[in-house]
C-alpha cells in the first residue's frame, strides 16, 4: 500500500482535515480509509462526524480543541499507521434494467453519443466501479471507473425530477439516485433495488467496495420491485 504525503489543515477550532494530493486515485482512497479507521479507533469519543471526499478526510470534533495539539496528535497517529488498518473491499452485484420502454431517456443519450444499445450496455456493465464516498444526497455513491466512451456533458438545464432508482450519467460520472432529486444527468437505466427499507437508509456498500451493474429485463425488474427486501450478493473483491 502506498503511504502518501499528507498535509494537515485546521479549518476551524472544531474541524481538522487531512489533505492528500488532489487527484482521484484508488491508492489515495485506500490510504484515506485506513487512516480514517485508525482515527476512529483511537478518537471515537472526540469525534462528532468524520467523512471524506476524493482526497480530503474531514474530522469534526465534539469540542473545540487547540488546533496545534490536534494536528500533532494526528501526525503521531499517522506515523503508526500500518497495513492492519487496510480495509478489505467487497464486490457487489446491482441489478439494472436498461430497457428503452422503462428508460426512454436512454434513447436521447444513445443518439447524442452515437452508440448502439447493446454496445452501451456492454460498456456500462463491464467495470467493477469503485465506490469512493457518499455525497450529494443520502446514499448517493461517487463511483469511479466509467468508460471514457460513455462520458457526456451534464445538461445545461437540470431536470426538475430524476426518479428514485435512476441510474444516470453526468460528465465522467455514473451513479444511482437513492431518492428523487433535481439533477442534470442523463437517465440511462433503472435499478429496482431500494436503498431505503421501511423508510430507513440501508447501505450495504462501503467506500472501497466495488459495484457491478448487472443488466436485467423488465420482468426481473418488476419482480424485485414487488419484493420488500433484496438479497444482496457479494464476494471479496479480487481485482
Amino acid at each position, binding site marked *: 500500500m502506498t503511504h502518501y504525503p499528507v498535509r494537515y489543515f485546521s479549518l476551524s477550532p472544531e474541524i481538522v482535515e487531512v*489533505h492528500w494530493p488532489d487527484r482521484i486515485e484508488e491508492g489515495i482512497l485506500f490510504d484515506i480509509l485506513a487512516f480514517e479507521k485508525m482515527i476512529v479507533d483511537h478518537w471515537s469519543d472526540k469525534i462528532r*462526524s468524520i*467523512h471524506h471526499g476524493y482526497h480530503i478526510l474531514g474530522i469534526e470534533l465534539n469540542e473545540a480543541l487547540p488546533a496545534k495539539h490536534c494536528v500533532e496528535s494526528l501526525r503521531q497517529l499517522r506515523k503508526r499507521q500500518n497495513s492492519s488498518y487496510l480495509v478489505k473491499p467487497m464486490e457487489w452485484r446491482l441489478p439494472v434494467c436498461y430497457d428503452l420502454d422503462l428508460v426512454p431517456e436512454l434513447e436521447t443519450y444513445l443518439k447524442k453519443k452515437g452508440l448502439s444499445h447493446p454496445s452501451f450496455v456492454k460498456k456500462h456493465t463491464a467495470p467493477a466501479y469503485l465506490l469512493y464516498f457518499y455525497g450529494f*444526497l*443520502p*446514499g448517493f455513491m461517487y463511483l469511479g471507473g466509467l468508460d471514457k466512451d460513455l462520458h457526456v456533458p451534464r445538461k445545461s438545464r437540470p431536470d426538475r425530477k430524476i426518479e428514485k432508482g435512476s441510474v444516470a450519467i453526468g460528465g465522467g460520472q455514473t451513479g444511482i439516485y437513492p431518492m428523487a432529486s433535481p439533477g442534470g444527468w442523463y437517465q440511462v437505466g433503472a435499478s429496482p433495488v431500494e436503498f431505503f427499507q421501511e423508510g430507513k*437508509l440501508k447501505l450495504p456498500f462501503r*467506500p472501497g467496495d466495488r459495484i457491478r451493474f448487472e443488466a436485467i429485463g423488465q420482468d426481473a425488474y418488476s419482480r424485485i420491485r414487488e419484493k420488500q427486501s433484496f438479497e444482496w450478493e457479494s464476494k471479496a473483491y479480487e481485482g
Partner: protein
Amino acid sequence: MSTLQDPGRAGSAASGVPQSGPMDLDSFLLANHLMRREPEAACLEIYMGGLEMIFSASTQLVFTGAVGKVRCQGHLFAANQVINVRKNDRLTLSPPGAGQWAYMAINGTFQAEKILGSQSFYRGITPEEKFSNNDQLDFMPGRRFIPDDQARVKPQNFPEEQCLRAYPGPSFSLLPEKAQQIIQQHAFTLSNSQSRMGIQLEEIVDNDLKELISAPVYPGTVQLTPSGKMIVLMRDAQVTGGYHRLLQIDRASISKLAQIRPAGKIRFAVETP
C-alpha cells in the same frame, strides 16, 4: 414552515446524510434549558411565525428565538416565558418583528421516530420534511411541573447586521490579495435565496480559480461558485461539495447568521484557528 429539530445526525455524514439540526442552535438550547429539558430534546422549529395550535391536553410551553406575539385564550405571552396551556386551548404565534427562527419546547417529549439517531426532519430520511396544515403532533407529557420563575431571560435581539467569526478555508489563500482584503473588510448582503441548506450572498467575488474535485463541506462552510457567488452552508447542507471553500464560520456565528433576513448584512472577522 415548521419542523421538528434536535441536535441532528452528524454521525451519518459518511452515508451522505446531512447533519440537520436547529438553524439557531443557541435559541434551541435556551428553549430546552428554560423547559428544564436535556439539551438533546427535540423542539418545534418555526420559520417566521404564523402558526395556530390547538392542544388536546394540558401542558407547558416556552418559545425562544424570533418570537412574534404569542396569544393564548386572550392572553399575551412573551418569548422565554413558561406558558401554561389547558386542554382545548388555542394558541397563535404571529410573525416576529425581527429574526426568522423560533423554537418551542414542551414539558414532555415529542413523539416522532428517531432515524439515524435523530428526530430532525429531512426530506427522504424522515416520513415528513415539514408539517402541513392540520397535522397532529403527539407528545408524552413530562412528570414535573415547571414553576414560572420570577427572573426571566430577556428576549434576544436580532440585528440586521452581524459580524461573524470566520477562519480561512483551503482556497482563501488562492484568491488574489485584493479579493482577500475585500472579504475581510466589506459587508456582504444576504440574498433572497435562503433555505435550511444554505444562504447565498449578493456580492460577486471575481475569481479564476480552477475546478476542484469533491471535498467535505460542513454547516458554516462558505463556498465560492465559479460565477463568483458566495454561499454559506447551513444545517441541512450536503456533506461534500465541488466548490472552493473560502471560509469556515464558527458554530455560534451560524446561529447568528440564521436569524438575519434577506437584505441584512454580514461581515467576516477572519482569524486563524
